[in-house]
């Protein structure tokens, strides 16, 4: 991967909730078109780190650069204002574990909300874009359905289309298959795989080890608020070096009932 042309660089990110120091200086650089998965036990800080990347959480300290957006955090630094935050988030898509679709709007209206409201796109144009994106995630026939009429997998695919509608530079996926029934996981992963093949820059927090190994260029293992190991996906998952990562993967394989491949 081309590390000289990073689209995203997070440097030394610290974050605490009250007295609980969740992130202790996490750094990550991602090249354009790269797919990076973050794995680790719950409480390791991976979701918090992801949420720091579109500033749903504000780091206490550190630096963040995404595309043309630059932020510095720490004592004496002014917190980013709401306009700056909104501008950053136009360029960084996020998909949530619990979908967070707008229940009072149809699938299509969920998708076009961003383009119409934030980018002032004409409604007709947005609808065309929305229908294209719904088709892309395999839901062309669900445009007029309300979220309550959709399965979990379908909801998540609408949520992905909603994020893509902003034409983001980077997509963040926060455990997007964790709330799904097992038989619905693959349809969502297929959409993500498809995005990867199109060269979308993505950061995924996931518990799907096989998928992470398969779709990612790099995998990072987070433990106790630090990036304990990061490297090529194959190396990290098949031949882990860090003792904590070895223990984590063993636990994972025991629970999943699969031997280390």
């Amino acid at each position, binding site marked *: 991967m081309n590390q000289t042309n990073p689209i995203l660089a997070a440097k030394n990110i610290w974050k605490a909730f009250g007295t609980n120091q969740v992130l202790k200086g996490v750094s990550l650089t991602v090249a354009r078109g790269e797919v990076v998965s973050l794995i680790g036990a719950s409480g390791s800080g991976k979701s918090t780190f992801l949420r720091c990347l*579109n500033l*749903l959480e504000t780091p206490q300290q550190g630096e963040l650069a995404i595309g043309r957006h630059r932020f510095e955090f720490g004592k004496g630094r002014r917190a980013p204002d*709401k*306009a700056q*935050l*909104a*501008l950053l*988030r*136009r360029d*960084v*898509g*996020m998909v*949530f574990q*619990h979908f*967070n*679709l*707008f*229940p*009072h709007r149809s699938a299509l209206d969920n998708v076009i*909300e*961003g383009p119409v*409201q*934030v980018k002032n796109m004409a409604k007709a144009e947005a609808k065309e874009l929305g229908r294209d994106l719904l088709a892309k995630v395999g839901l062309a026939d669900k445009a007029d359905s*309300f979220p*309550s*009429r959709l399965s979990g997998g379908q909801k998540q695919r609408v*949520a992905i289309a*909603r*994020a893509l*509608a*902003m034409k983001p530079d980077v997509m963040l996926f926060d455990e997007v298959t964790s709330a799904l029934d097992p038989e619905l996981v693959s349809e969502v992963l297929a959409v993500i795989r498809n995005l990867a093949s199109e060269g979308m820059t993505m950061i995924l927090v996931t518990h799907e080890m096989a998928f992470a190994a398969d779709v990612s260029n790099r995998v990072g293992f987070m433990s106790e608020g630090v990036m304990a190991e990061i490297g090529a996906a194959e190396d990290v998952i098949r031949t882990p070096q860090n003792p904590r990562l070895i223990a984590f993967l063993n636990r994972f394989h025991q629970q999943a009932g699969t031997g280390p491949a």
Partner: protein
Amino acid sequence: MYAWDFAALKPYWGLIWQGLGVTVLYTVITVVAGLAIGLLTGILRTMGPRWVSIPLRGYIEVFRCTPLLVQLVWVYYALPVLIGVDMSATTACFLTLSLYAGSFYAEVFRGGIEAIDRGQWEAGQAIGMREGRIFRRIVLPQAIQVMVPSFINQTIIQLKNTSLVSTVAVGDLLYQGSVITAASYRPLEVYTTIAVLYFVVLFPLTLIADQMEQRLGAHR
């Protein structure tokens, strides 16, 4: 057995309709004003800074924790003495009823807003929407669905509460009833008629409430 004689009310129907008109007028105006006050207060209570939300909490609690009749009498008799401004019974009633309704609506709005999952705010933020727009387009429409039953309930109570304005001689339905009773010596017929009229106005409102609740919830 009491011999009912509703025909005795015949000369007074004009007064009764007039009283009903006043009751409905007071209800409509104070509900609209109360909603405006309640929405603003509810929003500021949930999202405003502390120096705004704490005094507003004071307002809400004062009006929720004292009887409306006491408020009405106090605003009509005591307040003019304190601020040295004469207030007509009409003004005092509109003011008190609106503030009273506002305090209850504020809590309904606040409850509705807070019932909406934080994930809805985050989903709006994640596509670059600003807070005000998320509130208007995402949170408020959902909150209103949650609020419809309490809102209708509060409005029904408000219409019944307007009967208290009769104590300061505002000519609402109940006040005209007492006038007619004094003239006709037919309290049973008069108050039965009045009760039926209140019911006839309010019962359809509950039916509309049920329908709205079903329709708004249809896509849930």
